[in-house]
């Protein structure tokens, strides 16, 4: 899957920078401003790269330097951008750290003996982190400790940052920042991944049982999309409309929730690999998806087209982290074998894609 012969070299060679560390990349996140990306690793390191180098008359390039800091005594398990241009990182040492480079990390919480494996950041200084069945939600003037019916498997704030979705066995709970109340969305199965549509009207969850469950929150309607060969653990909504792209198959699988019968709207696109798609990230402004595969390949593709552009060829282990900068100007990616890259994606490349 190295791309057709005589094709354009992978974009990472033209517009990006690659690094390699000796530990798996666990997560990647872009700062909400400032053009910097953070990568969290299985050896407790958090590394920072960016912003892109822009020179007049030349295409943008990836940053040269990667700044590494030893953050956790053990493994990083989760990472999220905070509201301030920094990051929160959670680890199996029970510590939740606030990191605003170049300053040293600040310990926000310490739960000795707990593995903090999920973290999410909402609006107005609220953040949440989970360990097993326990969930801590902290705001500027409160701290709630919740005990869930089953272990927490994913956390995601809605785009407004006021509603927290908490995935587990048998459904998803919604915690509201307005009155700190909870309500439960029941759905059979083991829910293990979450994504909100950018307008907050839809919530999708990826199921252990090779299916995707989706709620339309306005009227509570629930859709189930099945027929996956593997587990759809990566979910991403298009910037406009309500199309959901997922991993779990040999190509990107997408569903259009605006159709009268969303379950009949399945489309597949991207390179049909012999290995499954392991990561998907929809461009924040255009109708284009970055797809990462189990063999390390990353490509740009779009629904309804057989064309694709290689960002990176295969050969570096499953893609475990993939994220677009908020303005869509670049892509950050990481693999299980510790390969990571930041690639500038200029508008000329994106003009391939129609506006979504």
């Amino acid at each position, binding site marked *: 899957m190295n791309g057709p012969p005589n094709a354009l070299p992978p974009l990472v060679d033209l517009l990006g920078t690659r690094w390699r560390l000796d*530990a798996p990349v666990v997560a990647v996140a872009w700062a909400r401003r400032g053009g910097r990306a953070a990568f969290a690793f*299985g050896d407790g390191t958090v590394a920072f790269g960016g912003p892109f180098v822009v020179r007049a008359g030349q295409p943008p390039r990836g940053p040269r330097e990667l700044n590494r800091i030893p953050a956790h005594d053990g*493994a990083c398990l989760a990472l999220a951008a905070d509201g301030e241009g920094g990051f929160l990182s959670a680890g199996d040492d029970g510590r939740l750290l606030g990191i605003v480079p170049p300053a040293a990390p600040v310990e926000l919480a310490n739960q000795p003996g707990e593995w903090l*494996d999920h973290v999410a950041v909402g609006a107005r200084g609220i953040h949440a982190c989970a360990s097993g069945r326990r969930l801590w939600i902290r705001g500027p003037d409160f701290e709630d400790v919740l005990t869930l019916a089953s272990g927490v498997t994913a956390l995601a704030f809605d785009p407004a940052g006021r509603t927290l979705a908490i995935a587990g066995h048998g459904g998803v709970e919604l915690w509201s920042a307005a009155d700190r109340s909870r309500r439960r969305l029941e759905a059979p199965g083991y829910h293990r991944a979450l994504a909100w549509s950018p307008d907050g009207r839809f919530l999708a969850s990826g199921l252990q049982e090779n299916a995707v469950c989706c709620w339309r929150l306005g009227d509570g309607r629930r859709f189930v999309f099945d027929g996956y060969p593997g587990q759809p653990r990566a979910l991403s909504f298009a910037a406009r409309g309500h199309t959901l792209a997922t991993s779990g198959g040999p190509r990107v699988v997408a569903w259009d929730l605006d159709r009268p019968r969303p379950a009949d709207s399945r489309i597949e696109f991207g390179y049909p690999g012999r290995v499954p798609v392991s990561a998907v990230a929809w461009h924040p402004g255009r109708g284009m998806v970055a797809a990462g595969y189990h063999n390390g390949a990353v490509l740009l593709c779009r629904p309804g087209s057989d064309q694709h552009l290689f960002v990176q060829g295969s050969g570096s282990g499953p893609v475990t982290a993939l994220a677009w900068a908020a303005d869509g100007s670049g892509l950050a990616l990481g693999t299980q074998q510790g390969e990571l890259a930041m690639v500038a994606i200029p508008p000329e490349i994106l003009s391939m894609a129609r506006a979504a």
Partner: protein
Amino acid sequence: MSAGVSRLPVTVLTGFLGAGKTTLLNHLLRESGRRYAVIVNEYGEIGIDGELVVGAEEEVLELNNGCICCKVRGDLIRVVSGLLKRRGRFDGILIETTGLADPAPVVQSFMADDEIRQAARVDGVVCVVDACHFLASLARTREAGVQLAHASTVVINKVEMADEATLAAVEAEIARLNPSATVLRSARGAVPVEALLDQGAYELPRLELPASPAPARPRYVAVPQGRHTDDLECVSMVLDRPLERSSFLGWLQRLVAERGEKLLRTKGIVALAGADRRFVFQGVHMMVDSDFDRPWRSEETRDSRLVFIGHGLDGVELRASLDACQVPWP
């Protein structure tokens, strides 16, 4: 699975409280010369000597895939996923289960999760039993039989406390209920570690079944007072004539679909008509893994050997329905 990355071996330790699981675990940690991550559900009798010991609160979850026996352990999926991020710091994982735990959800967690299945494999399920109390536990509790059924190795511990007649009775009962398990005797958890490691108990190419299994007719067993009526038994069968492919595969599919809940373990090496390779299968409840294995060797008898361990199996009926899958005599 990416090339060149071998899957981490996982050894599961089961057995009742007091049988000596922790002692055996510490023995493994000391003697194996390997670095292990240890996952425990109860901080039991004594401390564990490992450097990386993780406590997990047992969480058995039913999967919503139309099979009520498809259960996974949410706590294990979570902890193993976390451990995989530290890859390179240890050579294997040891899981010590609680005294009454059913091993099936543990094993099924490693079969039913894509990420974990690609990175780790259950190498063996070791059941530690107390020589003096095992037969009584087996008669009194369903859990003891279930743990025995899933074992790839049974360690009869505290042999120094039992007489030879008791040990012989224990071994006979183990052979009756789980004839393909390796049986070891031990005093104070001391067994040769190489006998417990690198078993590949769930790898089809390494499947071995005894050549002359117990007779398939249900034997009369004296039932002690209070024994469950849903009696655990093992049905072993040998068929001399090759099996017709589509009817056998249909038979196997129906069997696990209809009786998956009661079928704890299934294993088989099968001669299919017209196939020059052995067809092998093994399963836990409804999750069955099957494949064509190596070619039959010229000196081998091309017969089919199957073993089913479960509750309330009708051996006579199983045998009759399977007989019907054989190709007719030439």
